[in-house]
């Protein structure tokens, strides 16, 4: 039996999971999520770790491997670090074994990851250095429009004549949106327009990694945004040679942390087999 923890430090939220792996069977013991507002993420990592332990009634010495991911390279108590795309790929497979691609959409970046059935990263592509069309941007717009995060999705789905956001720049797009409000464009149509333009970018990523068929698992915080998911589906439906089913999961936001824990367990077992065991601190 192996107990492994995964801690995913994102740009806006921190996520932690605890897993038990026994004879290839994976059991999710506990989870924790928290927004990083003002506090030092490394401090929060500790908080999150303690929380998952407490929740599963465990002590630090029970844990075999603490794996970090995201921006967690410098967490002092980790056993090993895996990079986000490695962990999101694994998380996507855990959440849906049929996934052949993961689309991780977080606060600042979007990444498309092509994977095989074992969760191996075959290729990937990230959005560029410019922050346009990120989750952060959507969040700002939502606040401006006075809608709660959970409402974005359902509102967007009501949009029938979406208004195209032409600006590539997130800052200028914000002004575009303000202009739309003044032109009396309805909130659903604005949101849908934003979602469609984000979706176009994301499907471009998917296409460029060579995702052509099978399921794509959306991971990261924006997986919960049903409007975005619908927009991605819509955009994909216009592309002839891409037969992709878009999937999301209530636990998608944990994908990185799940992947980290599972890779941690995998690595631990591999090392144990090679007799190079080193326990988590």
């Amino acid at each position: 039996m192996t107990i492994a923890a995964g801690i995913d430090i994102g740009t806006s939220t921190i996520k932690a999971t605890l897993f038990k792996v026994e004879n290839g069977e994976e059991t999710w013991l506990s989870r924790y999520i928290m927004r990083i507002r003002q506090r030092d993420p490394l401090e929060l990592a500790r908080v999150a770790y303690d929380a998952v332990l407490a929740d599963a009634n465990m002590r630090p010495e029970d844990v075999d491997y603490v794996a970090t991911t995201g921006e967690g390279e410098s967490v002092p108590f980790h056993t090993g670090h895996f990079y986000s795309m490695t962990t999101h790929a694994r998380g996507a497979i855990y959440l849906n074994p049929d996934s052949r691609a993961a689309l991780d959409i977080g606060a600042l970046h979007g990444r498309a990851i092509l994977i095989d059935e074992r969760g191996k990263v075959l290729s990937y592509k990230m959005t560029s250095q410019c922050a346009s069309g990120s989750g952060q941007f959507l969040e700002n717009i939502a606040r401006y429009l006075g809608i709660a995060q959970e409402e974005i999705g359902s509102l967007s789905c009501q949009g029938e004549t979406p208004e195209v956001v032409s600006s590539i720049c997130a800052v200028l797009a914000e002004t575009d949106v303000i202009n739309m409000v003044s032109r009396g464009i309805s909130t659903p149509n604005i949101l849908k327009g934003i979602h469609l333009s984000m979706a176009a970018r994301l499907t471009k990523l998917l296409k460029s990694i060579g995702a052509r068929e099978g399921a794509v698992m959306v991971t990261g915080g924006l997986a919960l945004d049903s409007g975005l998911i619908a927009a991605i589906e819509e955009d994909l439906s216009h592309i002839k040679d891409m037969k992709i089913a878009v999937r999301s999961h209530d636990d998608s936001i944990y994908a990185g942390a799940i992947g980290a824990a599972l890779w941690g367990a995998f690595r631990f077992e591999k090392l144990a087999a090679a007799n190079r065991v080193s326990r988590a601190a």
Partner: protein
Amino acid sequence: MTTVKVATPKAAARAPAKEVIKDASMLKQKEMMAAHYDRLTSAPETGAKVAATFVPGNLNELVMCFDLLNNLPEVNAIQNGLRRVSGSYVLEAEKIGHSEDVCTYVKSDIGMMAKGNIAPNGKKFPNPDVLLLSYTGCFTFMKWFELLREQYKCETIMLHTPYMGDGKITKGMIDYMVKQLREEVIPTLERVSGVKFDIDRLRENLKRSSKAEDDLVRVLQSAKAKPSPIDAYFGGIYYIGPIFGAFRGTQDAIDYYRFLREEVEDRLAKGQGPVTPDGDMGKEKYRLVVEGPPNYTSFRQFWKMFYDEGAVVVASSYTKVGGVYDFGFRHDPSKPLETLAEYCLGVYTNRSLPMRIDMLVNYINEYEADGLLINSIKSCNSFSAGQLLMMREVEKRTGKPAAFVESDLVDPRYFSAANIKNRLESYFQMIDQKRSGANAAA
């Protein structure tokens, strides 16, 4: 585009606003273009062979010697821009792995291929039998044809044009090019086409070129008049179509340019201004020189921002990308290969930056322009890298104000109408204010 109603210049004044106004020369040109696309797309049936090649460094006279049809990917990209399909092509190319940062002409072409290679007439383009990589003034062309070669796996011929870095054409350059023509280009074209090279045929073609070139120059220089009977940028782009494309060296081109010249001279005699898509332009208020290519995806919207304000472009550098003729160069049948080399070397973007500045300064002075406008194109390093210095230098030397706007040739994402309009308006108001300031002082 085929559905728009068309009116002759006379009917223009009466035409309702929505109709696109075209003068007779434009109609003639449209026919020529349509015929050319039909020739191309019916190549599989007619058995004609096709050479793809570029506008700057276009060797149409030579290509015709081998009975090859000339297909120019840049012209196709322009058509796709005007027909507003280039955006989706560019996106397609990006989806298959091209960077967002690179020239969108290339991506529009690659995307068009990926989406079935459909010509403006709705039929499929034939695959080229040979890629004639005769290019000048831009490195991207080389990559462009390497990419096409990868796709079509066809014969590719390189004709390298050295850059006029020191502002002069040396004998070494001409020798190098003539030798490439003689020993690489011509033998390969013979092999691909199965037609033997006949230098007299080339001479004939060249002779026809120079005739049309004479008339083109007359047309472009008519803009020295006040008011100018033409717009030498937005209108100019139509005027250069045949000669920069597949018609230089043909009788068609001679006919077209004679016809065009007469039309323009008629307007000139009557003291008329240019014809715009909305009919005759109102009073000429500003005369501009423009540097840089236009935006094709919002071409009319862009143009409207000018003619609505009474701004006419009297000279532009873009109308020199396929050959600079207004300083005396003509294709010379008496030295056929040398003249082709000289033509390639002298193309606008193959001229050093100081030469380009000299040209613009000269235009501002000779055409009595109010200033310089630079439309900086995101795609095109060849044009754009250095334009900000050009702007300074031109201002310094002419004392005339310059303005700078940014867009792209065929990528609609880079055309921000509000932004450009804002700058243009400010620019025109600034010219006004300066004038009235000058009047007040006087």
